[in-house]
């Protein structure tokens, strides 16, 4: 049988994949993809727990996470656009005028 742990482990693996993505991506757009992956991983966990506890709270949480992810995309892309206009690039290695 597939237990809760199975789902959670898949969620954990996807979360880690997302983390790897966040860490290795230098292109901001693709970095954002990775954050989406991470949030989706959490969603799996919530849905699974919700299912096994027969409780709706998890689905609520997942629902709000989806909403949050969507608004983050909007704001994030907005910032990326102004950034791109100014820098002409999305490479975050070029973003280091402030340091030290």
């Amino acid at each position, binding site marked *: 049988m*597939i*237990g*809760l*742990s199975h*789902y*959670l*482990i*898949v*969620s*954990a693996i996807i*979360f*880690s*994949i*997302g*983390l*790897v*993505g966040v*860490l*290795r991506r*230098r*292109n901001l*757009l693709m970095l*954002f*993809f*990775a954050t*989406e*992956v991470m949030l*989706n991983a959490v*969603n*799996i966990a919530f*849905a*699974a*727990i919700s*299912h096994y*506890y*027969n*409780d*709706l*709270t998890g*689905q*609520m949480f997942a*629902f*709000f996470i*989806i*909403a*949050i*992810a*969507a*608004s983050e*995309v*909007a*704001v994030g*892309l*907005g*910032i*990326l656009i*102004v950034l*791109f*206009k100014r820098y002409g690039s*999305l490479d975050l290695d070029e973003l280091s005028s402030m340091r030290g």
Partner: protein
Amino acid sequence: MYEIIAFYLFSALTIGLFLVTVMSKNVLYAMTSLAAGMVLISGFFFVLGADFLGVVQLIVYVGAVMALYSFAMMFFDATRDIKEKNTNSALVFLLGGLSALVLVLMFAAPIHSDAIHALYPMHVGVGNAQDVGIVLFTKYLVPFEVAAVMLLVAMIAGIILAGKKMDKSLTKDTSIDDEILVLKDEK
């Protein structure tokens, strides 16, 4: 049996697709696999009986978010291969692996307990959408409304940030000594 097959299939596919998302050098591939992964995750939701969530996932992610991303991709003209300097990939994978290991360790624990009683139980014979609707519009009405505000914020933010007004600075900041010089010139 059916569940097992679905689970493993979806797991393998999502993991694979997300790996592509994370590792691919091509934005298009990455985005496509991300979208596909999202779709498969909604599959998880359906398997787990969260039908409403599955639908929302499809609509919001695959429909809205992905559309936004693709527009953005076009705007940024990022269809070409992205060159990325990965100076410390060993560290990255070490961290990823470690976090996976730790999280798996955590989740391998007997988290599930029969002693926990659902606070907002699903009802037998009631559709998931109805169940969700009731909880969402009673208990979680406030967060729901706040989420609306949040989306409004996101909308305003998106609009003003991407707007033309941002193209040049409106900050007016000539210094007094400049002005004095001007005055002197006028005399």
